[in-house]
């Protein structure tokens, strides 16, 4: 499973980080940065919660 971030949609709301602190960190301006592209085994639920948390649909799952 892969977590993909569309930078053109990320508005820096920062809501994605809380449900998935192992997958996403926020930079100094509040924009999301993926810590890992490939979701590690066992973190699938975290990844799903992360993708769903973004009010601007900037995050999506693949595979």
């Amino acid at each position, binding site marked *: 499973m892969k977590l993909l971030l569309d*930078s*053109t*949609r990320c*508005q820096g709301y920062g809501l994605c980080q809380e449900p998935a602190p192992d997958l996403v960190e926020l930079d100094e*301006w509040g924009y999301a940065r993926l810590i890992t592209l490939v979701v590690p085994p066992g973190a699938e639920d975290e990844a799903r919660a992360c993708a769903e948390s973004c009010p601007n649909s900037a995050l999506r799952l693949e595979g």
Partner: protein
Amino acid sequence: MTTTTVRLPPAQPPGTVLGTAPAIAESADAYRASGGYGATTGPGELLAHLAASGLRGRGGAGFPAAVKLRSVRDRGGHPVVVANGEEGEPGSAKDRWLLRARPHLVLDGLARAAAVTGAARGFVYLSDPAAGESVRRALAEHPPPLPVEVVETDHTYVAGEETSVVRRIDGGPALPTAKPPRPFEQGVGGAPTLVSNVETLARIALTAARPDLRDTIARSTLVTLSGGPVSPLLTEVPYGIPLRALADRYGNPGAAGALMGGLFGGLVDADALDLPLEPDALIAAGTALGCGAIHFLAPGRCPVTTAADAAAHLAAESARQCGVCVSGTAAVGKALYGLAAGTAGPDTADSLDRWARGLRGRGACGLLDAAAGIAGSLLRSFPHLVRSHLAAPCPVCAGAAPADGRHRLTVAVPVVAGAPVPARPPRPAPSPTPFPLPALKGTP
């Protein structure tokens, strides 16, 4: 603004993109006389030659042309081919020169790429009005074997990015989209699309005309050289030539380094000028050939000024789609401006280092990567200058007026005289027929 001078090589080797008369727009007859539009090399054979020669794309990324052609062909359906002549790098003039001077070479390459991929529809994408006029004249003079449309765009840094190209041809703004999908998967009208730089297409056409010279054709490149003290130069050189020899040939011996690959390769110091102009060697050294634009740092100029100019250009050209790019390019631009202007705070080097490492790969296109690369390469190549600029204002930078910097990196396109236009009835306008279109008849 300085004018780019095109130097004509003394002897005219066959198989060059510059050709025999770089300052004159080539007619269809002249192109045919040089072996162009010939039917001796079929699409399958051509693809094999391109795979064997290892020809790489000349838009910047340097991806192998044969691999790209094959991936579009293998998607099936009704592929689309696009000649991309929109060069956004301010220090590059070769693509616009090529469309102005040798439109038939590019259109021949486009038709051959269509034959290889099975495309039934082609586009020439550009922003330069003189290039557009030249291509339209060429299309009327020698109608291609498939419908080819000219699509114009505004000249911006990101308009030539392959997803911008697709979006613009589909009627949208010339702005990058998030990847995947890439155009070869889903491009113009959803079809698998080959977006190919015009110099790449020119080299494909040359390979078809002179397969015996395929290796020379694949291992030569157009370069736009600038930076002073002499006016910029567009020329063609073989891979492997040391950067220092290129600086000498251009007229900037004793260059203090270079800004490489347009803005993408970042800054290199004087020692790095021993590197050969060769894509892999440059990548291995942490820089890049990119589109072949090299801005040699003239002795007496400060590399920090050049870094600030480059960052200012990128910040101004951010397409402002990605929040991180707007904030990131502005931050890098402001910090480098401060360094040049003598107003940078003590944490500037740390911030630049953080952005150099943290901004790469974060935007939807490569512009933000270029900004990160400028910051990182200045720290890597000229750490002593970063330190000295933090300690005291730099008189050289002050003399260069850091505020109006971005235009110092811009070169002008060489002027090309019009060719005599033979009297022929204009062909009917290519109809934007929806898919599917009749199969290709092959290159006449």
